[in-house]
Structures are given as C-alpha cells and as structure tokens.
C-alpha cells in the first residue's frame, strides 16, 4: 500500500534545547524531512569582546549546563595556548580526571534518563522508578559518583569554580581521591549490568555512510588537545580548526552548520571510537565487541553504544589516573599567568564531540575576537541527512506514522544533541 503520512514534532523532548522534526510523505514518496533548530541565540562570541582574559572560562562555561566543564577546559586551554602556558603533569591529570567524570555523568544521563524510556515504552524515566527501580538506582549511583568527583576536583558539578587559567585554585585531598578510586572500582560492575540490559534491546537497523571527525590519538584515546582527523583521511593541526569545520548559515536553523569532505560529517562518541578504536581500554573494547561495534560503524543509533563503551573506558582510566596522582607529591596548584598578544585555539573532546574555542588577545590580555564551534553544531547537517535517508527508507516500506515518529525522534536523540549549546 502506498503510504501517506506526516510527522510533526515540536519541540523534540528528552534532549537539551529546542529543535523540531517535520516529515511529509505522500503516496510512498518523501516530500519533506527537516531537522530545524529554533533555539534563541545568546551571542557569547560577541559578549566576550572587550573582556579581560579571566572572563573567558567563567562566562563561556555558561554556554552549556551539561558540558560546562568541557567548555571551561576548552576555554582555559585556548587562553593558555595564546599566552604560552604549558600545564604541568599534575594539572593535566586532574583536568583529565575531571573531564572523564563529566563524560561519565553526561553519557549516563543520556543513556539512562533520556534514551532508556524509548526502549521501555515510556515517555520519561519517572515511571521507570517504579517498574525498573534497580536500573534507575544503578544509573543514579553512577551519575552521583561522577558528579561527586566533579564537585571535589572542579569545585562544583556544573559551572566549576576551581578550574582556572594556569591550573586549579585548590587541590583535592588525597584521602578524597582514594575514596573515589574505591567507588570507581565498584561502579565497573554496575556498568556491566547496565550493558547486559542494553544488550537486550534491538537498535534500529539503519546505516548511512558519512565522515567522522575527532581528535587523533597518539598513544591514548584522545580528550584534551592534539591533531584533528577524519575517517575520510583529513589530518590537521589543532590551530587549523576552521578548515576542519567550515561553518556556514542555513535557513532552517539558528545554529551554524559545518562540512568537510562531503555534505556533512559526524562528531561524538561514535566518531571518537571509529577513529581511535585501538586506544580504548581493553575492558571497554570488550564491551564494544560484544555489541559488534567496531570501526567504521555507520549506524548513528550505535552512538548510544559508543557512549556506553566510553563510560567503561573513562572509569578504567580514571582509576589509573588517581593511582598516579596518589603516588606523586602534590605541587603548587597553579602557575602564574602573564598575558600577551596573540591567538589561542583549543580542541577538546566533550561528551557530544569535538569542541573548539579560539580567542585573539591584545597586549593587555583583552579579547578582541572570540569563536566557539560546538559539537552539536557540527552534527546538525549530518542529522538532517540521516533524517532524510531514514524517512525515505521508511516511506517505501510503508510503516505507520507513530512508528516513524518514534524512530525519527530516537535518531536525533541518539546524537545526544545539545541544541541550546549549538546556538550560543
């Protein structure tokens, strides 16, 4: 039977920010499929103009509530790169630990509170508290641990207070780190049980070939700084990020879009994993393999699984990071900052993909130009192309409206979009 249907989701729920999905199918033919972003711009890049360097991390962290630590760390790195500051070993480890815990809390929030209801046929996690209390409690336990570490190391779980250019205002106590290490070891078990549950669900079988962009690991799975790479063979230096993102404006969105070698590219957990699979912790790789997830996977729904794999990776790596920190003598928390004229770029892998901050300073350390390129902004074009392909596939199959609506919402949700962040 020839299918005619309309899907109109305004706004999409269980994502951060405001975006709409519209699909129109007439007589089995796709007429329209649109992912539009209606979030109101906040003009952070203009706001920072004329401000002194120390405003940058404090203000740009407020671009996003979910990945404020990622923004703060990217901002700090951009300022440090401009001023020629190289963080010491201790600062680097503490920052990475902090970042890992943001990744863990963000991925867990997405997987268990935002995505899980789709597989359990509920509209939110709230009814699951009654029907699947153990799962919700397990997720809450993981999230709480991650947030507790962020409170301790960063000073606050969102909009951190201790993270500054040059290092930290204050260091955690070793006894606190020791306690976190014990709790992290315990959480591995919870993650395994969670993957067991997720393995029972069947993810939609949908593929569309695309390009994946991420940081390029040298010896480790990459998170803070380094070269940029794409699965189509592009390789660039951090400071050449503009050639990697190529932002442009479109009618259907208040967020800018990006492109590289083809019409669109993807960033995020799946992109990182596709480009850096060999650097995953063995335990994480094992989980990936149990889901048949290996490079290069082109099913966007597998981003959910890639997030799960990364949860295991960051937990394992955090345990080693804490061990190393406990074994070392703590030095000064921060270095002195001497502003100078110049440009600084930072590329940091935040939960939803690669994030860039770039500032230009005058000789007093005042910002004369600011540019931020957000992961979700880089994903929008890819989401649009996926949505079209998905709708076309289902138009010919003749599924009912409800099913297409659910699938389309799940597709966009799989990217874990941070929409208000993409319109900063």
């Amino acid at each position, binding site marked *: 039977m020839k299918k005619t249907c309309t899907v109109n989701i305004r706004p999409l729920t269980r994502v951060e920010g405001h975006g709409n999905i519209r699909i129109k199918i007439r007589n089995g033919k796709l007429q329209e499929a649109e992912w539009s972003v209606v979030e109101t711009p906040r*003009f952070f890049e203009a706001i920072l103009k004329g401000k002194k360097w120390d405003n940058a991390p404090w203000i740009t962290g*407020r671009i996003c509530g979910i990945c404020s630590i990622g923004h703060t760390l990217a901002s700090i790195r951009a300022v440090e790169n401009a001023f020629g500051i190289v963080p010491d070993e201790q600062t680097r480890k503490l920052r990475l630990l902090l970042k890992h815990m943001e990744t863990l809390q963000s991925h867990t*929030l997405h997987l268990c*509170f935002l995505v899980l209801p789709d597989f359990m046929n509920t509209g939110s996690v709230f009814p699951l508290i009654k029907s699947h209390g153990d799962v919700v409690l397990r997720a809450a336990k993981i999230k709480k641990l991650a*947030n507790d570490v962020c409170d301790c190391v960063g*000073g606050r779980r*969102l909009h951190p207070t201790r993270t500054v250019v040059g290092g930290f205002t204050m260091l955690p106590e070793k006894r606190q780190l020791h306690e976190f290490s014990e709790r992290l070891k315990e959480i591995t078990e919870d993650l395994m049980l969670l993957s067991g549950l997720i393995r029972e669900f069947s993810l939609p079988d949908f593929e569309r070939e695309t390009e994946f962009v991420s940081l390029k690991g040298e010896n480790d799975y990459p998170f803070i700084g380094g070269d940029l790479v794409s699965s189509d063979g592009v390789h660039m230096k951090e400071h050449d990020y503009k050639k990697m993102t190529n932002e442009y404006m479109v009618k259907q969105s208040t967020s800018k879009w990006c492109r590289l070698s083809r019409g669109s590219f993807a960033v995020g957990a799946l992109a990182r994993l596709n480009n850096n699979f060999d650097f995953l912790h063995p335990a994480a790789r094992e989980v990936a393999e149990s889901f048949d997830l290996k490079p290069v996977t082109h099913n966007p729904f597998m981003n959910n699984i890639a997030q799960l794999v990364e949860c295991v990776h960051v937990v394992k790596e955090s345990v080693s990071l804490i061990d190393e920190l406990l074994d070392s003598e703590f030095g000064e928390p921060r270095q002195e900052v001497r502003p100078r004229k110049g440009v600084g770029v930072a590329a940091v892998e935040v939960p939803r993909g690669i994030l860039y901050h770039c500032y230009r300073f005058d000789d007093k350390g005042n910002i004369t130009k600011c540019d931020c390129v957000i992961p979700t902004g880089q994903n929008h074009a890819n989401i649009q192309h996926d949505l079209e392909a998905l709708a076309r596939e289902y138009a010919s199959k003749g599924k009912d409206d409800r099913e297409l609506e659910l699938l389309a919402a799940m597709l966009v949700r799989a990217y874990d979009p941070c929409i208000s962040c993409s319109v900063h």
Partner: protein
Amino acid sequence: MAESRTRTYLGVPLYRPRVAFFEFSSCEGCQLQILNNESTLLDFLSLVEVVNFREAMTERSEDYEIAFVEGSITTEEEIKRLKKIRKNAKTLAAMGSCACFGGVNQLKNRFRNPASAKREVYGSHPVDSGPVRAVEDVVGVDLRIYGCPISKDEVEKIVLHIAIGKSIVVPKYPVCMECKRNENICLFEFGEPCLGPVTRAGCDSWCPSNRAGCWGCRGPAEDVNLRQMRKIMEENGFSEETIIDRLECFGGFLSLMKPERGRHG
C-alpha cells in the same frame, strides 16, 4: 493519585503540587541541577507531581500550579510563550540568574548598537533577537530562586516549603557572612577579587569556599554599599575594569550601577 494525599512530612499532611518546568534562553543548567540531585531526587519527586519537563519527559500538560521558569527572554515568540505560562500558573518562580536578572546573556545589552552583536556572530544573516530581559520585565513573578547555577538544596527547600505551606525566606545578608561562618581564609588575602561583601547569601559561599572570588551571581544583598565595595577592591589593587566585569556579569547589580554600562561600541 490518591496515595499522594496521605503523604506526610514531620506529621504534616503533604499537599503534592503539580509543577512544570520551562526554559527560555539559557544553558539549561538550572534544570539540570534538579536532575543532578541523585541522592534526593526520588524524595523530591514524591513531594511534587511533575507534569512538564521537556528536558526529561515526553508527556506535556497545561494543567499545573507552579511553573519554574529558567532563562532570559529575548524574542517575541518567547514573550508570547511566557505570558501563556503566567496565565496557567498559580505560582511562577523565576529560577536562576538568567530568569531573575538576565544572567550572563544580558551582557549583550551593553553594546550601544544592538546590531553589532548580531553582525559579530552572524554577519548579514538575519536572526530574531531583541534586548535580553529578565522574566519579571515581562510578567509578574511570585518567587525568585537565585544563583548561576541554582543550588539544588535551596530549590528542594523551597519546594518543600510550598508543599507544607510554609513561607519562603531568602537570606538578606551577604555571602561574606557565610564565608566567615565556613572559616575560609578571605579571598583578598590570596590577592583575588571577590564580591562576597555585597552579594546576597544562600549559596553557602560556594565560590570562596573553593578559593575562587565571588562574581555576584545571586545579585545584591539588602542595603549594600557599592561605594564601600569599590573602595575595598581599589585598596586591594584591583582595577575599575575588574570591578565592573564582576558587577555586570550576571545582571543582578545593574540597577545599582547604570552609568557604567555601554562601554562598548
């Protein structure tokens, strides 16, 4: 739900209000603070019936009593949406600095020429965005929850007080007092600027306890003396620029410092 009516807190029967969460221009961090409350989230959820929370749930309802509104207001569409919420809600709470004062977003308003911010970010591409406004500049507000971000303990206390019908008291004294109570070393001793002496308490001196100066996210305490604050900052060697950066950051002090605004073309 019948069961909800029988719930009690300290022997007082609980009234379980229908609450809704809405976001406007913001980082959504304030909403997240509520989901971020793992250890007490379940207790919190037993106090209220959440009927609208787009970041967490698909179901929607227009039948609610308390609306928690996050974010600042910048477009006509937002104004319309906000007015509708005001009509539906018995109690409207402005949640976080964006909603209470415009938050960091209002820094855009300091440009004398509003088109310059648009040009800086979007070039000639048309975007709809007016001046950034606090929620109370558009509709009446019954309750203010201060902070960027809000403190989860404070929200829960407020919700509990609503549920048991107790009035809500917000501290009138400055952050400085909490900081002293927490026995912190004063930030000025570390050579850091701090707005603790003039900012409304209630965050338990969140930043100074982490050895970071206060940026005034909760707005002014009662009867504050900005002139005195300037003197302390100047005596400690901080520039006029540093003082203004902090005072104007979240918008809470704007009404006390109007003339300094608009330094940028």
